[in-house]
């Protein structure tokens, strides 16, 4: 099956100029401007297959929004090629628009002053959705999102969580095969987040809807996406699965050991000579630190169980936030930014 989205060497340059200060500066700006080129998206290539759910993450100003705007046809690329649903998004914008759904977490697409259902009815007209299909879909959406309760409330009176549920439903009313979500869970409480995630998963499973979502909430990625792309300074730093990313960036693993009794401590200390750091947490529990390339976790655990009397062994996972923080601050991945990182997809 051909990919749903194909992006090749995508570049977006913005031309800005430094405004001079004061009235005299403003007058000078009229006839001579010092222009600067700013490259927001720098040679990005990837492709997304049908039914994939892809997380697109990166720090603020990394080029996520610019990418989404090009993918949805709002912005024209400076160079490079995009094919999505068989269209060139900006050249065939209007026809392409029928085949995609877009959710902006920060901005609603619903009409502010009228009841939600009126907005839906307008969208039904705009996308020419047959009545039966429209009703069927609405009652289907209601099962997970529980829309019916506030269907007649004006949008401005909805809570953020309710509004987002409606916005997500609105974007999927015409059953687009491709859905873009720009920070769909921003500012939501845990219940609303869960409801939206469950809904997206179900739509993806039932209709095979391809989804690309940007987020700052990494639990979105953990729950929804089998694949994530990390972008910074307009470049893709990583493109692959979350477990692979963790494995790649966890240089140090920790194993927590709870001993049966105090005397076992001496037995455990033996391991510190073999590239394993032994740290005392309290009398009976210790934390072992080691590098995966030097020490194999399975081997280590087998030997500890054989040689030491233990109550419990726990591999401690590094939280994904920590992994991502290290990428954003430049501690990881940035060295080989030009090449394809190991473990990444071809």
């Amino acid at each position, binding site marked *: 099956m051909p990919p749903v989205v194909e992006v090749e060497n995508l570049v977006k340059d913005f031309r800005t100029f430094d405004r001079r200060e004061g009235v005299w500066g403003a007058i000078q700006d009229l006839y001579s401007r010092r222009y600067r080129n700013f490259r927001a998206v720098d040679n990005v290539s990837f492709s997304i297959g049908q039914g994939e759910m892809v997380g697109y993450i990166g720090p603020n100003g990394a080029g996520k929004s610019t990418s989404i*705007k090009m993918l949805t046809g*709002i912005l024209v690329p400076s160079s490079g090629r995009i094919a999505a649903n068989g269209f060139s998004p900006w050249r065939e914008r*209007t*026809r392409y*628009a029928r085949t995609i759904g877009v959710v902006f977490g920060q901005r609603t697409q619903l009409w502010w002053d009228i009841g939600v259902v009126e907005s839906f009815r*307008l969208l039904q007209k*705009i996308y020419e959705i047959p009545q039966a299909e429209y009703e069927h879909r609405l009652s289907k959406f209601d099962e997970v999102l529980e829309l019916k309760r506030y269907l007649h409330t004006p949008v401005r009176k909805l809570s953020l969580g309710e509004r987002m549920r409606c916005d997500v439903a609105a974007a999927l009313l015409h059953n687009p095969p491709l859905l873009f979500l720009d920070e769909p869970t921003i500012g939501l409480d845990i219940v609303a987040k869960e409801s939206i995630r469950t809904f997206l998963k179900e739509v993806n499973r039932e209709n095979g809807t391809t989804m690309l979502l940007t987020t700052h909430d990494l639990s979105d990625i953990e729950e929804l996406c089998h694949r994530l792309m990390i972008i910074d300074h307009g470049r893709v730093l990583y493109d692959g699965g979350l477990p692979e990313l963790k494995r790649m960036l966890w240089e140090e693993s920790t194993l927590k050991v709870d001993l049966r009794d105090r005397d076992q401590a001496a037995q455990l200390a033996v391991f510190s000579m073999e590239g394993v750091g032994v740290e005392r947490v309290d009398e009976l529990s210790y934390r072992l630190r080691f590098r995966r390339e030097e020490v194999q976790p399975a081997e280590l655990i087998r030997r500890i169980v054989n040689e030491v009397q233990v109550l419990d062994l726990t591999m401690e996972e590094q939280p994904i936030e920590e992994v991502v923080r290290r990428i954003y601050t430049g501690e990881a991945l940035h060295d080989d930014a030009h090449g394809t990182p190991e473990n990444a997809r071809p």
Partner: protein
Amino acid sequence: MRTLSLIWQYFVQYSKVRLAYRGDFLTSVITTMFGAVAGIAAVYLIFHRAPLIHGWSFDEILFLYGFGLLPLSLFNLLSINLYFFSEVYIVQGKFDRVLLRPVHTLVQILFEQFRIEALGDTALGLAVLWATAPKVGIALDLRFWLLAIVFTVLGATLYLAIFLSLTAVSFWMEDRVGIIPPIYNMMAFGRYPLDIYGTPIKLMLSWVIPFGFAGFYPVAYLLGKEGMLLFAWLLPVVTACFLALAVLVWNRGVRNYSSTGS
């Protein structure tokens, strides 16, 4: 057809919005009506003393004023989004959403909101026509109403075209100077006999910003003024030219927005 039904749907939904705020809507209707009546009172105060002004009787001027309300109110009905365009669509970024819908951007901008109060002006204009037509020797027959509809639609389209071109400028720059309000005020000039102005203003209202074609020329033709047949025929031509220009500028503006994102 599809676009028409969509426009109707927009209109129905927007009416619901306005009716949701009944007090606000009523106030707005009353102030609009008051403004229109004040306009007619002004015409009365200025012109009723003089028997003939450049060949125009007081009743004819009143008839012109009343007829002029028709294209004007149709324009006002549709132009509400143009006033806030720069602020709401460009600065606040609402235009992104417009670009994501499978409907032409102009249809969305013109028909998403309506100034329903403007229909009050239509009613007032019709009342003035009805009252003054016998005095200026015009029969309100089928031919008249057909011509009136054609002139109203063309006139309103001409107004829209002119203001669309001006609004489209905000795709390139913020209109800090405010070129639109003074030009909006100039619209009123085209609803009096152009002969009362000096040559420069008359030329401008005819050929530069041709508001004269939306008000003065068609009515002068209806009243049987000399040499006006040509101008009546020119109205569709002028409207078509300005509309073509407006769509061209608009589409270029959209393209510019798409490449700069602002």
